[in-house]
């Protein structure tokens, strides 16, 4: 029973991701990606990791994708599906690099297949996860939260700077703001 559900979800996740890449319209692509994230979230639930499943939906589907959708709807790109297709010179490096990563993933899975740890038979309580996280990796958690704070302050500074000096070229400043936000997740 659980195996059947897993294979359905895995198929949904893979097909959703492929369609999200191949779809030219950004809003459709976002919806495919959200579908795929949902399928992955339920897979995590099947693997007895409800906390990861819920965070997958809250953070990725509920926060990051909503922000993407907000930006795309604000910009109103018109009809991007009628635009030009990328030339093969542009997508060939991407294809080669992704082939390398897929090949290495397959190698790792094949070589370690026998030693794979069996998933926990019972769901891991949140208390256990948080104890491990905050007692074992407290410094790392603090470092990451500090970095998030840096990104936040940086984005705020760049946004203020642009608002106060209208002489700044409009194309450069928003790029830098979005660049500093990208570091945060």
């Amino acid at each position, binding site marked *: 029973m659980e195996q059947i559900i897993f294979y359905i979800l895995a198929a949904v996740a893979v097909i959703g991701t492929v369609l999200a890449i191949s779809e030219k319209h950004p*809003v*459709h692509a976002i*919806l495919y990606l*959200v579908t795929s994230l949902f399928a992955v979230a339920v897979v995590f639930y099947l693997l007895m990791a*409800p*906390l990861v*499943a*819920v*965070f997958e*939906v*809250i953070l990725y*589907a*509920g*926060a990051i994708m*909503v*922000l993407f*959708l*907000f930006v795309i*709807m*604000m910009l*109103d790109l018109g009809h991007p599906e009628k635009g030009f297709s990328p030339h093969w010179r542009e997508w060939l490096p991407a294809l080669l690099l992704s082939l390398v990563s897929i090949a290495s993933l397959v190698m790792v899975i094949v070589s370690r297949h026998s030693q794979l740890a069996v998933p926990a038979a019972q*769901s891991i*309580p*949140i208390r256990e996860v948080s104890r491990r996280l905050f007692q074992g990796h407290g410094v790392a958690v603090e470092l990451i939260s500090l970095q998030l704070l840096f990104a936040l302050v940086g984005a705020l500074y760049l946004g203020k700077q642009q608002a106060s000096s209208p002489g700044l070229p409009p194309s450069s400043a928003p790029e830098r703001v979005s660049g500093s936000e990208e570091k945060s997740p």
Partner: protein
Amino acid sequence: MTASPLDIALFAAKLGVVFFVILTMAAYLVLAERRILAWIQDRKGPNRVGPFGMLQPLADLIKLLTKEDFIPSAADRWLFLLAPAMAAIPAILTFAVIPFGAPITIAGRQVPLLIADLNVGVLFFLALSSIAVYGMAIGGWASNSKYSLLGGIRGLAQLISYELSMGLSLVPVIMLAHSFSLTAIVDAQSTVPFIVYQPVAFIIFLISITAECKRIPFDIPEAEGELVAGFHTEYSGMRFGLFFVGEYINIIVLGGLATTFFLGGWHGPFLPPVVWFTIKSLAVAFFFIWMRGTLPRLRYDQLMHLGWKVLTPLALVNILATGWWLALAAS
């Protein structure tokens, strides 16, 4: 995992009853809202269909089902058709984790009166509440109309403003109950409801859930004075009905959640637990209707200001104070 036919039958019966009761309550909440608003505004309200207008929801349903289901020619067809369902489903799903009564015993088995006791119940609610916005945003975008698009964008901006304070207002509840499970949160309130310890968190949560179900004073995405009907301008017939009923289901579910988190859940003297739960949930729903009859609509930037500069810092200070108090109480 082996389940006897009796267990499966009990579970299916529970699902059916919950589904029926929620949909009926949503339909009659529409009528109640119209009557209460009429009462506030010194009118009579709908009182012609059946005794006291009690059959009005049925008449509305027949009207909505027989109306033409209109699709604008420039709309994104599939997304336009799917969006109302995307708006209504998360609202119904959220009810799965709410305990609406004390466990009862049927045929020698203990039946908990909730659909699923997840140990991440609070996070499940937050996840569903953050994806509920997709129906509104996609519906507004797919209609290909300027009013709908503005409504959808406003809905997304509204979500970003209130979501954080809503999540943070629940942190003290989790700290007091020592659990993410809604059953454990209700059990922790068996003597004193959390509203006594956490009045600030309750007010922040109440303001945030008013924004969550897009009610006045936060009905910015549909603002009928400015945007015709906002994100559902182009919808007609039962698809509009689905958006509409989804909003009322959301009110009932959020009323149930406010009851569970702050008002002691189904605990209460004299009356049976299910009755207590219903009374408390409907009291929250009545508060929503009362607010609609009393307050004007906030502006777009006023909501963002309120969410980011008032509610979120206040919720953070509240978490700090709760932690301090818990540490002092433990030592």
